[in-house]
């Protein structure tokens, strides 16, 4: 029950609280240590990277690593490719998912249940099961080694439609009815009423799509073999296999690839957490 309080800096604290803080701090350090090491190594000469004991803050930080990576590999091009893919996929995903979800949630039409079942049935289907036939199909369509292949692959997911539909189901039908009586057609209702109301769901979908497209590894690995088409993930991977001992540069490139995700994560963190908590999907 009530424990004897400790005194710490003049405050009365429970031992349990102290332990909780110590644990939280210790675990946080372990979780973030690889990132700290990465940052530290990105500012070192290759021969100093593995020096032990670790010099966490390099006495002579080698900023040159961050200059060199742009010329050693076409990093800017990789970033451009990835950004392009991520933006197009995210926009297409948002538009087509919310558009289709509106019909599934608010309109009555023939075969609605059957069509929706097609989406539901594939939500549990791992992409890995059909990635090979999908690749063969894309190759037959001449989309091998194009960005279009990756866009087609990621922009029309069952996950997006499902997530948006669940959200639209929670919006009262009366709202649409009232708008119809006011003379709005369905497209106007979707654009003027549903879209503004569904900002939380759209944000969740944005951040999930952004992160999964930006970080995608297997998709680009299968589809993109030309250097000039590569995304940042497989671009860095290529660099690592070619120059496996240039540790400082590898770490600098990795840090650069993390920055956009870090920014999006910090800005939209709330939606991320809410999205996982409410849907529990994805992963």
């Amino acid at each position, binding site marked *: 029950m009530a424990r004897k309080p400790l005194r710490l800096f003049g405050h009365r604290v429970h031992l349990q*609280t102290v332990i909780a803080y110590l644990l*939280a701090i210790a*675990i*946080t350090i372990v*979780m*973030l240590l*690889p*990132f700290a*090491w*990465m940052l530290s190594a990105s500012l070192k000469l290759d021969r100093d990277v*593995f020096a*032990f004991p*670790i010099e966490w803050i390099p006495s002579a930080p080698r900023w040159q690593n961050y200059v060199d990576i742009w010329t050693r590999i076409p990093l800017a091009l990789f970033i451009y490719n990835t950004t392009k893919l991520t933006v197009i996929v995210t926009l297409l995903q948002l538009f*087509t998912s919310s*558009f*289709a979800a509106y019909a*599934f949630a608010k*309109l*009555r*039409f023939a075969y609605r249940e059957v069509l929706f079942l*097609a989406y539901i049935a*594939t939500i*549990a289907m791992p992409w*890995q*099961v*059909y*990635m*090979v*036939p*999908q690749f*063969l*199909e894309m190759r037959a369509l001449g989309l091998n080694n194009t960005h279009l292949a990756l866009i*087609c*692959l990621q922009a*029309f997911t069952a996950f997006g*439609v499902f997530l948006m539909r669940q959200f639209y189901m929670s919006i009262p039908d009366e709202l649409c009815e009232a708008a119809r009586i006011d*003379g709005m*057609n369905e*497209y106007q209702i979707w654009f003027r009423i549903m879209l503004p109301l569904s900002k939380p769901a759209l944000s969740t979908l944005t951040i999930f799509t952004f992160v999964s497209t*930006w*970080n995608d*590894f297997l998709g680009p690995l299968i589809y993109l073999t030309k250097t000039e088409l590569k995304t*940042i*993930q497989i671009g*860095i*991977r290529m660099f*690592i296999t070619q120059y496996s001992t240039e*540790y400082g540069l590898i*770490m600098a490139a990795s840090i650069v*690839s*993390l920055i956009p*995700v870090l920014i999006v994560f*910090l800005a939209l*963190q709330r939606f991320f*957490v809410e999205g*996982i*908590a*409410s849907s*529990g999907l994805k*992963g």
Partner: protein
Amino acid sequence: MVIAREDYDIPVAVRRPLLTRRQRQRRATLVAYSFIAPNFIGFLIFTLGPILFAFALAFMHWDGSNAMQFAGLDNFWRLFSDRAFLTAFWNTLVYTLVSVPATLVCALGLAVLLNQKLRGRAFFRAAMFFPYVASLVAVAVVWNMVFNPEMGPVNMLLYELGIDPKNLPGWAASNSWAMVTVILFGIWKSMGYYMVIYLAGLQGISPELYEAANLDGATSWQKFWHITVPQLAPTSFFVSVMLTIQSFKVFDQIMLLTEGGPGTSTLVLVYHVYNEAFISWDLGYSSMVALVLFVMVLTVTIVQFRLTRED
């Protein structure tokens, strides 16, 4: 009804009632299909089509260039004599059996810890979650450097702590430690995600239960075992299902950390699918291995469906 169609001048609101019920229904259906079409056509071509193709391909012989041949059950019988497949199947099970409970326990522990009113709680939570969103390629390469058997800081530290250099773990480079390394990495990367689900679950527990327990003089430990754990049972079930499916599908982290090796010590099912397709170009057989993965995931999904229905 014929009149209505030709009267283009009449405003929409007036013209509409003149349509018959059937016409209105047809128009509504067309509108609905126009909403679905942009997504559904893409979905049909790039997801549904390949899925059906996958099932067909599993019963074919095909190298991707010559004519496809019907194989019957050849590919299926081959599974049992393919040592690499059996190893991959076994390794996938080992990965799942270890990483699912371990991640679950870590995620639950984190959630309980960070559900308390601590200052900087939001920061702690974000720190736990960040590895999940960080790009795999970047974190895998740093992980391999930190766990480098000869020069990495982890082994240097273990050496300083007095462990004989001969007994230092070989991590990703050794047969016996490669799986451990991959599992540790998986736990580190994904536990923050499941922590968030557990945190949501904790919000759903009625505070009155704890108040009653306080009146009875229960210790924190007793409250944890007798209230938190049973109350979180549905969440734990959901988390374990998700973790199991994720573990069945594991590939990226293994390719980046160990490339399935050394030897076949971390070869998993999806890796075998990948190798058979893109290295050997044995597309039919690769699809059969993928079908095994599908059956595994389907089984878990059906079990989940059955059990949650009973509640």
